[in-house]
């Protein structure tokens, strides 16, 4: 919010931002102006009161914002030095600590559309991050507490190893989980504005550490509930986003409907997969632990294909045949990359009965068969809005598309791959309990070493 206006001001074009007249929204906009280097950008606040129907009364305010000479403060340039925060935020009883982190919920009027939002929590009570607990948490890594891990939006804050440890304590993590939380923070913390999707940010742990720390990759592998590692790491990621980087749910990320879960961390069943793990597929060793995934709009459609034990016994609706998987993956175009998720049992069927000896073979088959017609590409208006698509296809002018030169000569019903960069854009995940099951989804995948944070 506000970044575009800042760019205009830097270009010498005077501007003004129309904003809702809610204290939080104006505060968030001001923070964005400061983060982007022009803190005194002007705003005109318009009402959110539906009873006010004559918006034209604000016209003079906009004119004034563009013509009233700058004040001395508005003209000033320099270096902004924020106040040095205290390392200790408060001392109190358990209940007082909870109240402090929750913040003053009464400032949210109950008759407003703005529901109360916890200040420094995800809405639930937290483990008090005392000096002793944080020191114990820091034994989970060899890194210095003062080492900077990441600077990120929405407020451009910087997060150190100690800050990650504090949030891990609050989430209920054990020290041995800390390298995973640090890797999440380093790679792509859940701070983005993911839009309305299944999951705001998805993180997959591949490699030995999943077993070492007791992550669940069996029944209910996608459900963080019940397993201490899956649950607390998932929660710690959200708290790092909120406290470390300043995410304010509904304000810095006003998703229309949001995500059933803000971030989700789960584990690959590397030891039960018929194929090498994603750590190996990503260029690491089988004994290395790797984090995959990222913070973006993720969708997941888990399906139960309990009817099948081999391709000779097919359920018409839910069976994950390669052909149906390719059709499903067509919907992953918007997210950039796609993935298929198999239970180990279903992965075995795909290897032994469908004949995909390696993940690469499967990726290549799916890539060749996951296509849209040239006509579909051209007719999908929303692709216009997709920056990745814009980058790849270079839209030239409204209503026309510049196709990859290889595709220009195709007829309208000629097939163009959905994943423009190649087969590696389709990730094959093996996780879950015994029995047949598969799923598909879309994400923007990155990977990073977890071992680097031990």
């Amino acid at each position, binding site marked *: *919010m506000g970044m*575009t206006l800042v760019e*205009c*001001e*830097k270009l010498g*074009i*005077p*501007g*003004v*931002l*129309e*904003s809702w007249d809610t204290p939080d*929204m104006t505060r968030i906009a001001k923070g964005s102006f*400061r*983060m982007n*280097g*022009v*803190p*005194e950008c002007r705003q005109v606040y318009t009402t959110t009161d539906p009873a006010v129907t004559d*918006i*034209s009364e*604000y*016209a003079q305010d906009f*004119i004034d914002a*563009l*013509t009233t*000479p700058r004040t001395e403060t*508005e*003209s*000033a*340039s320099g*270096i*902004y030095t*924020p106040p040095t*925060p*205290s*390392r*200790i*935020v*408060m*001392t*109190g009883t358990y209940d007082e*600590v909870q109240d402090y982190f929750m913040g003053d919920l009464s400032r949210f009027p109950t008759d407003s559309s703005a529901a109360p939002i916890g200040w*420094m929590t995800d809405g639930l009570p937290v483990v008090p*991050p005392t*000096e002793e607990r944080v020191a114990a948490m820091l034994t989970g890594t060899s890194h210095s507490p003062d080492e900077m891990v990441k*600077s990120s939006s929405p*407020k451009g804050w910087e*997060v150190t190893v100690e*800050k990650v440890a*504090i949030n891990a304590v*609050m989430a209920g993590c054990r020290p041995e989980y800390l390298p995973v939380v640090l890797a999440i923070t380093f790679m792509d913390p859940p701070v983005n504005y993911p*839009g309305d999707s299944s999951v705001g940010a998805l993180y997959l742990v591949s490699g030995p550490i999943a077993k070492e720390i007791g992550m669940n990759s069996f029944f209910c592998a996608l459900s963080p509930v019940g397993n201490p590692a899956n649950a607390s790491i998932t929660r710690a990621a959200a*708290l790092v986003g909120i*406290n*470390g*980087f300043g995410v304010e749910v509904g304000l810095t990320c006003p998703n229309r409907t949001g995500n059933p879960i803000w971030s989700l961390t789960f584990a690959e069943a590397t030891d039960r997969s018929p194929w090498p793990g994603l750590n190996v597929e990503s260029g690491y060793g089988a004994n290395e632990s790797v984090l995959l995934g990222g913070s973006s709009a993720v969708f997941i459609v888990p399906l139960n294909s309990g009817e099948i034990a081999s391709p000779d016994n097919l359920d018409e609706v839910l069976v994950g045949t390669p052909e149906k998987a390719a059709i499903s993956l067509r919907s992953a175009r918007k997210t950039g990359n796609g993935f298929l998720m198999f239970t180990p049992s279903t992965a075995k069927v795909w290897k032994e009965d469908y004949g995909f000896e390696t993940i690469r073979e499967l990726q290549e088959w799916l890539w060749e068969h996951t296509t849209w017609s040239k006509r579909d590409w051209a007719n999908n208006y929303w692709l*216009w*809005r997709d*920056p990745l698509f814009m980058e790849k296809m270079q839209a030239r002018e409204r209503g026309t598309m510049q196709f990859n030169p290889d595709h220009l000569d195709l007829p309208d019903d000629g097939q163009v791959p959905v994943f423009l960069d190649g087969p590696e854009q389709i990730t094959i995940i093996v996780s879950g309990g015994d029995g047949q099951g598969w799923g598909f989804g879309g994400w923007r995948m990155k990977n990073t070493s977890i071992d680097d944070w031990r």
Partner: protein
Amino acid sequence: MFTVLDPRGYEPEREFQGISPRLDTLSGKKVGVVNLHGGNEEVMLTIAPSIKALVPDCNVVYYSAEGRWSGLPDVDWEFIKTCDAIIFGHDY
């Protein structure tokens, strides 16, 4: 009693600059009224003619940006750079 540590990240030092000089008047100027993210047509489409009514010789142009959440593409900046002043709105 619990003494607890601050979980929040640090705000770094930042360079900042002032806003650009304002116009003496909107008369004879081109003002872009830009609907940044869609969904704000009601306000921006009302504001544009209202400014025109107050400053009749101002060239007020309503513009719906193509860019969405990841910044504006060149086509939007090409329009913005033709304006003497800009009003942005974004439905929140």
